């Protein structure tokens, strides 16, 4: 098997698995229980959280552990709810779903509420877990340039005194583009100062989904200037279903589940101890191999680009080296996926395919690709499972599959 879809999922590393194991069996206690062995588990959990937090220059208490990145993204947007609560009153009431006249149950089930507030900006190339939640708050998309980077002019023009949250991923999950977050946070800082000057209380926060970033980037929340940041264990050789939201002290969020009051009361539910232990181990490993991996993937990318034939490279600049996004114009990339699958090579596409429920990639569209370019796009994301030998082999097989598909098309 040659697995070239590490942006979708990564296998749990041996070290991570070993670290997690005891917490499924011997150290299974509920961290909230009174006796000493449970307290030890609680301490291990806190230490693990500290390890994760430390890796991004934060403290354990700044992290809310969640059931993955999507949940962390959803949690980040509850900052909006806080603002609405603070400002609800006779003159500005809590927005309610439109059309509050009595409607039938069936009609109510069909309608999704639309909010009247207009205070969220998000990058148009964000992951669906941001786009969907942003749309819930009538968010507005910020444009990207053809190179995938945020269009700062567009961003500036869209920020108003109403703007509460800007969400922009650090690394794009489809094309690997690294956004200039520090530049954006400097802008946000200026807006904050300007608002204070003018006596406007509305806060403005910068949130960043960094799910794809920890493998190859050295992240520091203070240096990046973000107020919230989403992390994801599943993309860095940790377990699935574990994520975290870094939250700076200035941001007040609302609980996404209530109950026993775990995670600073923001996400009640017994702690996923093995998951967080594994997450911490994965973070350590990622840090440790950061420099080696950068060189390795740069080399792999070079091999692919020189040995593959008749492609167009889509992510030419500003992207992580483990993302190689190609386009085979005139070819249906979904067919390539099924042909490659028969040779045990697993890749992804931005084409409108069954896996994307028939939707073409909004990211490739945003950077200006034509429909036929999108239909022919292949996303290869490199990772720990790959060897240099595999990369040569993959290039050879992809070439042969592409030419056989071209042959089929010619012969009708």
């Amino acid at each position, binding site marked *: 098997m040659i697995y070239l879809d590490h942006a979708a999922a990564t296998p749990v590393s041996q070290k991570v698995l070993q670290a997690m194991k005891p917490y499924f069996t011997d150290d299974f206690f509920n961290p909230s229980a009174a006796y000493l062995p449970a307290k030890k588990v609680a301490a291990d959990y806190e230490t693990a959280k500290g390890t994760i937090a430390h890796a991004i220059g934060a403290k354990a208490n700044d992290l809310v552990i969640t059931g993955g990145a999507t949940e962390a993204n959803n949690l980040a947007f509850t900052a909006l709810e806080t603002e609405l609560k603070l400002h609800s009153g006779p003159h500005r009431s809590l927005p309610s779903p439109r059309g509050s006249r009595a409607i039938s*149950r*069936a009609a109510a089930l069909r309608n999704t509420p639309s909010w009247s507030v207009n205070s969220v900006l998000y990058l148009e190339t964000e992951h669906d877990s941001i786009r969907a939640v942003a749309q819930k708050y009538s968010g507005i998309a910020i444009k990207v340039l053809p190179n995938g980077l945020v269009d700062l002019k567009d961003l500036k023009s869209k920020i108003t005194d109403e703007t509460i949250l800007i969400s922009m991923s650090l690394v794009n999950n489809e094309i690997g583009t690294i956004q200039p977050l520090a530049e954006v946070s400097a802008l946000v800082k200026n807006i904050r100062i300007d608002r204070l000057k003018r006596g406007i209380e509305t806060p403005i926060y910068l949130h960043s989904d960094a799910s794809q970033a920890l493998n190859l980037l050295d992240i520091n929340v203070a240096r990046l200037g973000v107020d919230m940041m989403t992390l994801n264990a599943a993309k860095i050789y940790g377990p699935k279903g574990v994520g975290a939201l870094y939250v700076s002290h200035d941001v007040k969020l609302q609980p996404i589940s209530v109950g026993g009051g775990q995670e600073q009361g923001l996400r009640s539910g017994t702690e996923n101890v093995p998951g967080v232990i594994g997450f911490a181990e994965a973070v350590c490993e990622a840090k440790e191999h950061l420099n080696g991996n950068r060189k390795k993937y740069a080399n792999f990318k070079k091999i692919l680009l020189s040995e593959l034939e008749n492609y167009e490279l889509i992510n030419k600049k500003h992207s992580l080296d483990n993302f190689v996004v190609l386009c085979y114009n005139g070819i249906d990339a979904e067919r390539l996926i099924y042909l490659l699958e028969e040779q045990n090579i697993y890749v992804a596409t931005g084409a409108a395919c069954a896996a994307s429920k028939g939707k073409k990639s909004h990211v490739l569209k945003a950077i200006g690709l034509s429909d036929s370019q999108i239909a022919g796009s292949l996303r290869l994301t490199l990772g720990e499972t790959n060897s240099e030998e595999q990369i040569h082999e993959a290039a050879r097989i992809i070439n042969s599959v592409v030419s056989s598909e071209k042959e089929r098309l010619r012969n009708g």
Partner: protein
Amino acid sequence: MDSSIETVRLGLAPWSAAESERSISRPLVFVGMSGGVDSSVSAMLLKEHGYKVVGVYMKNWSRDLPGMKCPWAEDLADAKRVAVKLGIDFEVWDFEEAYHEKVVEYMLDEFKKGNTPNPDIMCNQEIKFKLFYEKAMERGADFIATGHYARIIDGKLARAVDENKDQTYFLYRISEDALKHTLFPIGEMTKPEVKKLAEKNGLHNAYKKESMGVCFVGEVGMKDFLKEYIDIKPGEIREIESEKVLGYHEGAIFYTIGQRHGLYLSGVAGETNDGMPYYVVKKDLDKNIVYVSKNLNNENIWTKELVLKDVFIRGDAVHSRHFATNWERVNEEPRNARPLGRELPEANGCDEACREWTVSTRLRHRAPLIQAKFDGKKLIFESEIKRPASGQSAVLYDGEVCLGGGIIA
């Protein structure tokens, strides 16, 4: 690919692979591929027998309702994976709007009227053998094909060899024009043969779980689906004989005459002290009352006659040799035999003998065939049968040949 299946047996005789290589234009066939094993094997057989095959996934419904997952994307992936493996072209044709208008709305309307419609029959009539057929023809197709278990014998729709899988019940209303250009490649095979052939040829979906019932309702059930679309009100369940209120229902449309499960009656669900179950015998939609009875002999449960509406008689079938005599008697003027798929003429001026048009009929998919007389409007049975729900179809056969049918009034 496996060529051991005899060409002739499949009714695909005219073009052997060898022949097609010589000929300049192979016949072009668009095959509806659902992602299931039946349509996959159909496409495979057509390819193998020298046709130029284009696989088409008909996208009819792609909405996930809250709590209900529609597996269309998985089905599409399965269909395309097979098409790629076979090396044939593959397209997705979007019929979602038409499907909603022609099938879903029809279904909802029928339920609102208190009937129990069959959306699969409507889907074949309006989508697969109409829109799909027409679009394929526009694209220059010689044929369309599907993975239905059915046969075409001398131009007539006929039951499949695998009596257990025969799907002509769902096909009786498809147009004669479409049937002339239709191939059912697996109609001569049994389901186990189809699966084996799929496995032998490495089709990944050889043992895929069969989809049951209406695709968009999935496994959650019609009731939850209807609740999303139809405003329903709770109401009383009364005993028909005494008018006594025995319990309450969630909405009369959910109940079918003859039903005995799922009744919320006081005491043991659906039973009385004597342990006898209650049956639904009547629905009053205006008053929103469901009537039940424990009298098994209630006239609403049993009947010797069924009135059919929207009768659709297959012109291709009534010209059949066996049937011609009967038909001529009905019409008196055989040359003008009411052609192709029109409603049967009222049997005016017809003598007693001509009313006795003997058919075998199927009142449910896979239900046993029952002998009956048909007079163009009414089915008359020799002994009492349990009344099928209004809105379901009665499909008529003469031997293996499907004569058409009608919707139970």
